[in-house]
C-alpha cells in the first residue's frame, strides 16, 4: 500500500491562530481567530467551519462574525465533549486547524430590501450573530429589523454587551426573555414564543430567521405562520451530527437532504414535509 500526498483532498486543513478568547458563561467561550497572513475566511452569514484539533478530532462550529470583518472571524463554543472541551483549554496565541466554510448560509441577496424578524434561542444566537452583525454593517440595505432572543436563565445569556448595544439602537427592535428569572432580572420571563405576538411586522415583506434548540422550532413556526409570514420566508438553521462536511458521511442527512451541503440554513417551505427534520 503506498501513501501519497493528495493536493485536492477535501480534508486539507488550514492553520489558524487564536487572537483572543473570552469566557462568556460557565459553558461557552468566545474565540477570535485569524487565518495565516490574516487572509479572509470569505464566509456567508450562517455558514459553519470544521474546527480541528489534530489528535483529538474535528467539529462543526458556526462562524458568528460578519464577513465584513475580514482579518479575523469569531466562534462561540459550548463545551460538551471531546473536542469542544479541549478547545476551551486553548488561549490566545494557540493554533487550531480549520476547513471550510461549508454549507449554505442566509440568502443575503434575497433578504436585502426586506424586513427581518430574527429569533434566537440559546446558542442559536451564534450563527445569527453573523447575520445580525452583517446587517448592522450594511444597515441601509435592509428594511425593519426585529431581534428576539431567549435563553433558559439570565446567566446563560451570550454576547451580553452586544445585546445591550442592540437594545439601545434606534434602527432595530430588540426584545429578550428568559425561561427562569433570577433576582436581578427585570426583563421578560417566559418562553420565546411569548414575544412573537407582540412584534409589529408586515408579514408579506418580512423574512424570519430562526435558530435554536430542536424543540423550539415547532412552536416558533406555528406562531410565525399565525402571523401570516409565508412559508418560503421562514429560514431555519439545523444542527446535526457531522463528520465530513462534504455531503458524504451520511450523518447529517435529513431524509434526502444533507445539512452540511444543502443547509444548515433552509427555507421552511422546502423542509416542512420532511418529518425527520423536526
Amino acid at each position: 500500500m503506498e501513501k501519497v500526498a493528495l493536493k485536492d483532498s477535501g480534508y486539507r486543513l488550514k492553520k489558524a491562530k487564536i487572537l483572543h478568547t473570552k469566557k462568556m458563561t460557565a459553558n461557552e467561550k468566545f474565540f477570535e481567530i485569524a487565518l495565516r497572513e490574516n487572509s479572509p475566511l470569505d464566509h456567508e452569514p450562517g455558514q459553519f467551519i470544521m474546527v480541528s484539533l489534530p489528535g483529538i478530532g474535528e467539529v462543526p462550529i458556526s462562524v458568528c462574525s460578519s464577513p465584513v470583518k475580514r482579518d479575523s472571524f469569531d466562534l462561540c463554543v459550548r463545551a460538551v465533549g471531546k473536542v469542544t472541551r479541549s478547545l476551551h483549554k486553548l488561549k490566545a496565541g494557540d493554533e487550531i486547524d480549520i476547513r471550510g466554510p461549508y454549507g449554505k448560509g442566509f440568502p443575503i441577496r434575497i433578504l436585502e430590501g426586506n424586513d427581518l424578524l430574527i429569533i434566537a434561542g440559546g446558542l442559536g444566537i451564534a450563527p445569527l450573530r453573523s447575520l445580525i452583525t452583517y446587517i448592522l454593517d450594511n444597515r441601509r440595505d435592509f428594511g425593519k429589523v426585529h431581534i428576539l432572543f431567549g435563553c433558559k436563565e439570565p446567566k446563560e445569556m451570550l454576547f451580553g454587551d452586544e445585546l445591550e448595544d442592540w437594545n439601545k439602537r434606534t434602527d432595530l427592535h430588540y426584545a429578550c426573555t428568559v425561561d427562569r428569572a433570577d433576582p436581578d432580572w427585570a426583563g421578560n420571563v417566559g418562553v420565546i414564543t411569548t414575544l412573537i405576538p407582540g412584534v409589529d411586522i408586515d408579514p408579506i415583506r418580512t423574512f424570519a430567521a430562526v435558530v435554536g434548540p430542536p424543540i423550539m422550532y415547532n412552536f416558533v413556526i406555528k406562531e410565525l405562520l399565525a402571523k401570516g409570514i409565508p412559508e418560503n420566508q421562514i429560514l431555519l438553521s439545523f444542527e446535526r451530527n457531522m463528520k465530513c462536511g462534504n455531503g458524504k458521511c451520511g450523518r447529517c442527512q435529513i431524509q434526502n437532504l444533507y445539512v452540511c451541503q444543502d443547509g444548515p440554513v433552509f427555507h421552511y417551505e422546502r423542509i416542512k414535509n420532511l418529518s425527520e427534520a423536526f
Partner: protein
Amino acid sequence: MKKPKVGIFDFACCEGCQLQIANMGEDVLSVLGSIDVLEWREVMSEKWGKKLDIAIIEGSITDPHAVKRIKQIRKKAKILIAIGSCATIGGVNGMKNNFGLDDIRKYVYGDSYRFFPTELTKAVHQVVKVDYFVHGCPMYIPEFVALIKAALQGIPYYPPDYPVCVECKLNENVCMYDRQVTCLGPVTRAGCNSWCINNGNICYGCRGMVSNPNEKGAQDVLAKYNIPMELILNKMNMYNKCRELT
C-alpha cells in the same frame, strides 16, 4: 508535561488483564515512558499509598473488604480506569449471583463456609465512580492503548456502542448463524475486533451489552435455533448477570 502517577490494583479476577499489559512487549516501555507506575503488586514490591493521577482497577467487588479498599483507592485517585469485564460489568464473577450466597459458599467450602464472607458480585462502577472503561475478557490491547492515550490527552474515550457484528462483518467472517450456531455478537458491545469469531468461536458477550439492545429480537433469533430459553438467558448471563443490579 509531568508524568502522571499511576497505580494498578486488582480485585477478584484472574489477573489476565494485567498480563495483557505485559503482553504488549516492548511497547510497554513506551507506555512506561509516559507514565510513572508507582504501585503494581503483581510485578512490583514498591508500595505508594499516596495520591495518584490514575488508578487502574482490575476485578470485581465481591466482599466487604473489597468495598472498603476500592473506596479508599477512589479517594486517592484523580482518574479511575476499570479494565476487563470483571471490573466493567462484573464478568464471570457475576454468575455467582445466580445462586444464593450461602448456598454457593457451602457448596465450595462445606462446613467451614462461615470463614469466607462474600457479597453479591458488583462491577466497579456499581460501587464507585469510574471515568474510563476498557471492556473485554481479557481486555483487547489496542483498545487499552487507545484509552491510555485518551487519558493522557485528557479527553474522554467512548467505547463503541454498536454490536460486535459490525467488526465481525468487516473481518468478513462467515456468520455463526450461517453455521447454525448462536452467537451473542448482535447484542454485545464491539471493540474487540470480533476476536472470538475471527478464531472460529462464537461471541460470549464478554464486553457487555450495547446500551439499547433489542433483547426481544435477540431472544427471538436465539429461540429460532430451538434452544431452551433458560440456556439462552444463562448464556447472556455468563458475563452480564450484574446488569440486574443497579
